[in-house]
């Protein structure tokens, strides 16, 4: 959404930060609080009910490590795509973006698989605090990923319309990229504090 009063020459930017970029960073700062709330809810219930549930019996470290790796790589490709856009290399942008989308979809696939698997093994939204917090937290993250994938697909299509503007579009892509990286770093935290630490001393 390019929506800015400074679209034309009459705007005055005091600090030469693009409006959209600043907006996105603010949103991400805010998102820290969103995920902070979700993750801390999970950790609090883990802390006060350590015996209630044994997640290592459910979690598959292989699968989660794999999807973590996938997400990290998608972040890498995203960085390349943004860079390409700044250099005006549309082709390279498309190539990398397709990669990001592809990896994003793999990640989502893993998550869907994981959820159905867990549900089969008896962990549902209704099964106590662990189920509630786990699904809401990872689910919210998953929704973020899905939105990101959708956004990038739109960007990709847009790049074929020929309406891309050198500066505006580079910023648009950069903003989408920021969002994508953020989703990645949230997963970095979740991977460690939700999955990995459960396995310490249990293997």
């Amino acid at each position: 959404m390019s929506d800015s009063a400074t679209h034309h020459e009459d705007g005055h930017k005091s600090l030469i930060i693009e409006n959209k970029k600043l907006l996105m960073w603010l949103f991400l700062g805010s998102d820290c609080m969103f995920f902070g709330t979700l993750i801390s809810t999970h950790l609090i219930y883990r802390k006060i009910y350590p015996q209630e549930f044994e997640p290592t019996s459910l979690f598959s470290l292989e699968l989660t490590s794999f999807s973590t790796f996938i997400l990290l790589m998608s972040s890498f490709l995203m960085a390349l795509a943004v860079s390409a856009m700044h250099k005006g290399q549309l082709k390279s942008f498309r190539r990398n973006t397709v990669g990001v989308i592809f990896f994003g979809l793999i990640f989502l696939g893993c998550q869907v698989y994981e959820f159905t698997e867990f549900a089969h093994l008896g962990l549902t939204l209704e099964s106590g605090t662990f189920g509630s917090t786990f699904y809401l937290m990872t689910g919210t993250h998953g929704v973020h990923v899905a939105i990101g994938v959708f956004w990038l697909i739109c960007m990709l299509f847009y790049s074929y319309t020929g309406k891309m503007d050198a500066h505006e579009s580079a910023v648009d892509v950069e903003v989408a990229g920021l969002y994508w990286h953020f989703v990645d770093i949230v997963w970095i935290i979740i991977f460690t504090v939700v999955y990995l630490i459960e396995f310490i001393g249990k293997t």
Partner: protein
Amino acid sequence: MSEADYHPLPVSPDTDHSGENEKYHVFVNLALVLAAITGVELVLVYLPFNTTFIFTVLICLSAFKFVAVIAWFMHLIYDKLLLTLAFGTGLVIAAGTYTALLFLFSRSYVAPPEIPGM
């Protein structure tokens, strides 16, 4: 993809993109490092070390990954300080608040379920 739909975009003159090529190498290196760290983390939980030690190392490693992605992939170190402030404020408030919150909860406050009359 055929040449026909390849539309190179003119690089906007007002911004300086000479750094983009160096960044490429930074990105590649970072990606390798991140992958390596993830591998290390994975191995770490299987090692028979003291749990607190492993715990601490894991937290440090993921904090490093976290910061690294923000700094380089998200360009924060190349960008205006103001963006760091905007994001950092949120991050600091969130981290502070929720760490405090974690400490405010303790098992000793959880009431045993047997209540007469229930």
